[in-house]
């Protein structure tokens, strides 16, 4: 496919690169604006002409954010919930993926079909029932109310099943012949070969929980239980919104996942692909 570098090809290359670069610029404008806006006071954010340089009020904004609004609490809640969710959810999905990929048993097709169908069901249908269940269990404002319902993530089960299929049967057989227990085989023989997929799933689940909004919005009724997205939405809802504070909070909410992304970009991409391309 690579053609020799004729002048024509060089022009084409330049044009394509310029167009893609212009698009990339547009994609990054909101991020730059986030940095600008979170470093200015609310009244200076909306000025004409707009401030385009990075300001020096970041710490004022952060001070308001963490001092007045209990945002520190939201940060703690979000971290704990997302980490617990990724760890526990990653474990149960991986175990299920292993069962589907490496065993054959009666009912397998039906059970896996049930997992796939729930991929297509709109989760909004369960909002009202889940709310009522959590009210009856007295679980409003709790971590378990946010963590438990989505632990069995259809996408996660699907992803792990796909990846587990590449583990050679001989490896598992050999361990069995050596007398290893089934759970030990799973932990010590199968899982170590799964590290990239586990990382992809963990990141995917962390991100999903970190950014989840509608469901936490109905389950978390008091400010000290808020996660970051709910806390941000509540800051925006008031009539005299402090935009400096709000955008500093937005920056704080984006920073951890941005760092995670820049260091683990490969695994992010792997997570999207593993679920999508193999069918």
């Amino acid at each position: 496919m690579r053609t020799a570098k004729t002048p024509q090809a060089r022009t084409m290359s330049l044009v394509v690169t310029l167009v893609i670069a212009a698009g990339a610029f547009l994609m990054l404008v909101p991020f730059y604006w986030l940095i600008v806006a979170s470093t200015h006071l609310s009244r200076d954010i909306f000025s004409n002409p707009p401030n385009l340089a990075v300001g020096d009020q970041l710490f004022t904004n952060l001070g308001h954010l963490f001092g007045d609004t209990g945002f520190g609490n939201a940060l703690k809640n979000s971290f704990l919930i997302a980490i617990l969710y990724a760890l526990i959810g990653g474990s149960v999905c991986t175990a299920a993926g292993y069962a589907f990929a490496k065993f054959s048993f009666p009912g397998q097709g039906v059970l896996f079909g049930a997992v796939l169908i729930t991929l297509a069901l709109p989760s909004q249908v369960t909002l009202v029932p889940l709310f009522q269940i959590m009210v009856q269990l007295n679980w409003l404002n709790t971590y378990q109310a946010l963590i438990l319902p989505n632990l069995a993530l259809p996408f996660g089960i699907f992803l792990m099943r796909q990846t587990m299929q590449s583990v050679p049967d001989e490896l598992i057989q050999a361990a069995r012949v050596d007398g290893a227990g089934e759970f030990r085989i799973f932990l010590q023989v199968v899982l170590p070969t799964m590290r990239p997929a586990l990382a992809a799933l963990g990141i995917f689940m962390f991100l999903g929980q970190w950014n989840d909004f509608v469901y936490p919005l109905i389950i978390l009724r008091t400010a000290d239980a808020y996660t970051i997205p709910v806390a941000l939405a509540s800051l925006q809802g008031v009539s005299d919104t402090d935009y400096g504070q709000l955008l500093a909070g937005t920056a704080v909410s984006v920073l951890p996942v941005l760092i995670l992304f820049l260091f683990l970009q490969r695994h992010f991409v792997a997570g999207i692909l593993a679920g999508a391309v193999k069918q």
Partner: protein
Amino acid sequence: MTASTSKPKRRRLGYGAAPRLTPYLFLLPVFVLFIAFKIYPYLYAFWLSLTKVQRGQTFFVGGGNYLRLAQDPIFYKALGNTALILVIQVPLMLTLAVLLAVAFHSGLLKWRAIWRTAYFIPIVMGLVAYGILFSTLLNNQYGLINFALQSIGLPRVPWLGDPFWAKISIIIALTWHYTGNSAVIYLAQLQSISGDLYEAAEIDGATAIQRFWHVTLPGLRPAITLTLVLSTIGTLQLFDEPYVLTNGGPNNATLTVGMYLYQNGFKYFDFGYASAIGYVLTGIIGILALIQFRLLREKAA
């Protein structure tokens, strides 16, 4: 189902075979959670959709909620808004994603890694975060975007305050957020198209555009089917963007089915009506997903 699941019972080695119960034990946590937090709530929602709560008492109303829904102009408005956003945004995004993937794959693009990060990075931003960000960018009087438009001599646009432009704003925000995601999927699929096909087409004298239509696009079909179905399902459930950007306004111009469900359930506490909306939405999603799979499969044959 794939071949491996329908294969007749694998080897029955007494030695080196797993106890029969093992796979069920590995599946147990997932299925307990599934039954408690997915299947039971779904069935319960169906029951709720047949009831109405009045003065603390639950009454069975049969199809009453569904009949009311069939005559509810606000529901039709929400459905129309959702459909409009769907038919404009999804094709726009998928077309951009195909072009992006082809550019990245072509070998014409320099410094690929940098651009890939730029296009992919919006994925990590949460819906609320980018909703807030876009609402300041699109601010009518002071927003950066209107400033940019004015400085090149164009008029200001009432992005969030006008029924038409509010929809456009949501389409822009969605496209910014999700295009990279689809492009990554296409890029991977492109890498699996055999180079021989391109060579053969080139020998036959096909132009670059002909090669795109006759080799690239057919090769991408499985990935396009998948992203089309997933984006359709996602868009039909649209909630966060209108909630944060426009709160459904102005004048319900960006009210989506998802938002209307939420309003009925958690603003008016009409759980029966909200559940009926959920079930109608499930039906629409199911039918559309089936049609899309059928259409794209027929074309492939």
